[in-house]
């Protein structure tokens, strides 16, 4: 379970460039729930995920995993609970290391760096099994440099890496945004499989209204650092993409600037 209480994040506090990115997020996600997160560019979606992961320190408020207060815990202290896939396919993997070395890093997540061999045949077997799920032929390229793989291939490996260790929370930040439609669908499929297998608590940021409604059981929308609506249950079941778009437009007109976000909302 994740709960955020009165969560505030301010960037560049006290400087002329001060930016209030999160302004009081109250959110409780029960164990095993899959929440999709939508909102326009700059709404604070990535900031929220990064704050939950510990990359960003909150300026006010509390974060709890279950009943454990992790507000002060640095990112590395939370990795035993959290697995993540980033929006940028290059961000989740090391281009200079091989596929198997990258996977070995994820395999050791949450453990201390020890002086035992980083790779062994048992791990390679697990990696090969996992990679073959992708049907991309990557199981034969364990020793290829990650940097030589395409963006979609790298993102697929990142996703598998997130599931190599037991964790309870999965944070996905527009993890299919940079992929072609076919690969995006494949990745989304595998994501759903992993979530079901491991019964994870999931937050998935997306700009696709379709994706937001098709996956998970709850949808929240952020606007200017606040949650402006929270949809679940029957109400959500009756929602269509156009209803979401209306809500979006409403939020916009309540706010100030109206830009070209509509372009992003089509899909």
């Amino acid at each position, binding site marked *: 379970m994740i709960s955020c209480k009165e969560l505030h994040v301010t960037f560049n506090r006290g400087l002329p460039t001060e930016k209030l990115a999160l302004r009081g997020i109250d959110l409780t996600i029960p164990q095993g729930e899959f929440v999709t997160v939508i909102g326009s560019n700059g709404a604070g979606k990535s900031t929220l995920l990064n704050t939950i*992961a510990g*990359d960003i320190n909150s300026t006010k408020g509390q974060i709890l995993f279950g009943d454990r207060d992790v507000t002060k815990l640095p*990112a*590395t202290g939370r*990795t*035993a609970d959290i697995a*993540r896939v*980033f929006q940028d396919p*290059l*961000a*989740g*993997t*090391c*281009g*200079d*290391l*091989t596929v198997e*070395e990258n996977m*070995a*890093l*994820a395999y*050791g*997540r*949450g*453990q201390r*760096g*020890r*002086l*035992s*061999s*980083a*790779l062994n045949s048992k791990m390679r077997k697990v990696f090969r099994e996992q990679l073959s799920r992708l049907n991309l032929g990557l199981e034969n390229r364990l*020793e290829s*440099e990650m940097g030589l793989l395409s963006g979609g291939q790298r993102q697929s490996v990142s996703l598998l890496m997130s599931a190599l260790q037991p964790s309870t929370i999965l944070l996905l930040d527009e993890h299919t945004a940079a992929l072609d439609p076919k690969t995006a669908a494949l990745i989304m499929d595998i994501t759903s499989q992993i979530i079901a297998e491991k019964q994870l608590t999931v937050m998935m940021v997306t700009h696709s209204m379709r994706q937001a409604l098709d996956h998970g059981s709850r949808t929240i929308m952020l606007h200017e650092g606040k949650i402006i609506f929270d949809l679940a249950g029957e109400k959500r079941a009756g929602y269509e993409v156009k209803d979401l778009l209306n809500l979006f437009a409403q939020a916009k007109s309540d706010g100030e600037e109206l830009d070209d976000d509509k372009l992003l909302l089509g899909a």
Partner: protein
Amino acid sequence: MSLFSFLGTLEIGLIYGLVAIGVYLTFRILDFPDLTVDGSFTLGAAVTATLIVMGVNVFLATLAGTIAAACAGLVTAWLNLRFDILHLLASILTMTALYTINLRVMGKPNVALIMEPTILTPFEGMFGLPDMYMRVIFVAVCAIAGGLLVAWFLRTQYGLAMRAVGSNKRMAQANGIVVKQKVYAGLALSNGLVGLAGALFAQTNGFADSTMGIGTIVVGLAAVIIGQSLFASRSMYVIVLSCIVGSVLYRLAVSMALNADFLGFSASDLNLITAVLVALALIFPKLRNEWKAKQAARKEA
């Protein structure tokens, strides 16, 4: 080249092989260009020589020199990690400070070890080998053992984590790796190796001098670049050992250039020779690839 000067060149190349491994760790593994080495090479030599003159056991003295140099690396890492001083600048600051510290450690610009016992003394006359062979064997064992240890280390979980930190900090962190700790460890290890090289250099050459470290970084980089342009491999063992090979080849090339009368170089032309060698090492792999591509194209046609 006479046998005597060949062995001398080999000996220096092997010692600087340790420097090259240290430079490889910072520049390539951690992506942390570190110029501290100019100072930490001298620091290793200065601490070791001073302690030996004071009568301390040669092995302890060498260890102390190595640790002192490792601490210099920690200072650079601290300036960078704690205060966000750009890595290059942080290392220049430490290097500059070390110049004074080295003078203070020795109390004078140089310390002679000619009449003192050194780390080589216990091995003198071993297997009935003449001194000049024994010295080369000794430094070769040191360099290769150092290289094997570093390569082994880089293949452990801890070492892999360090490589991830140099490649993608965000990914490293998301996988539970404490980034700062790895940077500290890497800089300490790198400078420790360089300090050990300084300590060995002082003992094989019979002196420590406050200016002996000038240009260490360039020599180390030259060795890394030469080594890697010759051996393209993903194996950590090959990569690390190629640093040593690169260092030896660099020394041999320099001494051949200096000895070739028709080239007319004098000892003071060393810097130009170094620059040309490094440029060649950088150009060579590119030309080789272009040539291979051309061959392949011709085959298809």
